């Protein structure tokens, strides 16, 4: 079975992109937790969780996002989500008001631009 998560490290801006795909349920969560555990460190600029390829997402997944957010917040590392505008899972995010806690972008490009800007500012200083 294909892994439900792929981790991409960006050397240019120091961010990490975790791309989730398919149906994310109870059976997939431990694999995602382990992959994130391995990818997150003090050194990263922040994390983008890309949910563009996700068809099913449930309350356990939402719980995971809140946990990751809490963890990153302690180190002042931003967490951004990518959920395309028309995606059905947007409905779940709206129900739980996750946008009050986490920035949601419609595309990966838009989320990445946040880190490129930050990296640009840091380089200019």
């Amino acid at each position, binding site marked *: 079975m294909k892994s439900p998560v792929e981790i991409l490290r960006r050397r240019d801006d120091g961010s990490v992109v975790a791309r989730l795909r398919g149906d994310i349920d109870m059976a997939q969560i431990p694999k995602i937790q382990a992959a994130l555990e391995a990818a997150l460190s003090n050194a990263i600029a922040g994390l983008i969780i890309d949910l563009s390829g996700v068809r099913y997402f449930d*309350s356990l997944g939402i719980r995971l996002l809140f946990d990751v957010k809490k963890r990153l917040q302690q180190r002042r590392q931003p967490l951004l989500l990518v959920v395309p505008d028309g995606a059905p899972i947007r409905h*779940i995010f709206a129900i739980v008001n996750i946008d009050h806690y986490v920035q949601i972008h419609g595309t990966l490009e838009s989320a990445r631009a946040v880190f490129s800007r930050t990296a640009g500012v840091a380089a200019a200083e």
Partner: protein
Amino acid sequence: VLSTVLSHEDLKLEFPARPESLDRARSALRIWLRDAGATPEELFEIVTVCGELCMNTIVHAYAADAGPLEIQGRCRDGEVEITVRDRGRWCSPRGKSGGIGFSIVRAMTDCLFRHSKEDGTEALLRRRLKRGASR
């Protein structure tokens, strides 16, 4: 009298109450709902609600060995009725996702009942499909 035209095959599934069963349960449910005439939005919401109910069963119903998780569906006159049933005894500690799952379920169903009996717990959800309303 025309109601029989709108009815279609009932759904009957049984899986071991384990996380690995969720994927197969969703696949079967999606096919069944598509045949029942659910729109993509309805399909997404009903599958999501059933997923939460099944997860509850997996977390709460059986202490050690996973017993059966039963899903039954019927569609009559454009109204879908799905029952998620277990044969266990609910252990009370709330699931890891606590109130989040409940919020999702509440927002996406017209009607939901749950009752525990001696021989297990049953959750029943009802949802009127748009297709049914238009006929």
